[in-house]
């Protein structure tokens, strides 16, 4: 099964989260480099680098089709609503990680 590796800022450090397995780095660059190394070792998966504030800074897929962005219409065509959606999903990512750790 394809896995998503997330890189995000949390508690003044950069976290690499692969399916609940967490590594912490002092800066974003080393976190992203470590995440890319891990991702390249997988047959398929994706890497999502979250910026501060929940936006997606980088999105790379490995051995999987890239998810297309739907037409920018409807409720989430509005920038603030789209940002809300990203933040809600980011909260789920962190929640999932903490569920796996505990």
């Amino acid at each position, binding site marked *: 099964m394809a896995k998503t590796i997330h890189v995000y800022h949390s508690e003044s450090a950069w976290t690499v989260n692969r399916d609940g397995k967490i590594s912490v780095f002092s800066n974003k660059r080393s976190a992203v480099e470590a995440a890319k190394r891990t991702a390249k070792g997988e047959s398929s998966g*994706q890497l999502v680098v979250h910026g501060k504030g929940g936006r997606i800074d980088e*999105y790379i897929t490995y051995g999987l*089709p890239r*998810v297309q962005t*739907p037409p920018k*219409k409807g409720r989430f065509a509005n920038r603030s609503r789209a940002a809300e*959606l990203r933040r809600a*999903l980011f909260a*789920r990512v962190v929640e999932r990680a903490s569920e796996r750790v505990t």
Partner: protein
Amino acid sequence: MSASLKTKHVFINCPFDAAYKPIFDAIIFAIYDLGFVARCALEEDDTSEYRLSKIERIIEECPLAINDLSAVSPDATTGLPRFNMPLEFGIFLGCKRFGGKRQSKKRCLVLDSLPGRYRQFISDIAGQDIRSHNGDPEEAIRQVRNWLQTTSNRTALPGGTEIIARNRRCRAELPALCESLKLRPDELTFYDRSNIIAAWLKSSR
């Protein structure tokens, strides 16, 4: 014909009632998970555009289509079958046949509830790519996945079982996600659902 063909767009021609919704939602999910874009008549663009004109425009823009004829059966009240799906399927075939060189490359999948049922009401379509989902959303995912792989000639597509597992997870997380967005899952429009699915897939594969 003037609209540009959008290479990864897939037109879904299906019923929009509550009974069919689980299959419709599953097909939308599979399309996004496979790296394509779902389109259908529920798109809310210009309200002044006539429904049929809108459908024609979407069909013209989509090189691929999934036509589900499973709801073509006598209505309990009127005793008459619903014919919107065969009509839109016919428009797609007409566009492919008479729309010029680019439109002639269109490909479509025909889904029905049972194998061979179509022969009793639309036998002229024999020879098309016709498959059955038996009313099961997960079987619909498998059929859509297998057809898109064959049609697109891509090798690196996730398997049906993997897509089904992700669809289950997405459905399980949807109520909490909607709650944090102050939305109700049953009130999501086609665009809302598409956006949530695509964003969820980017964060959760």
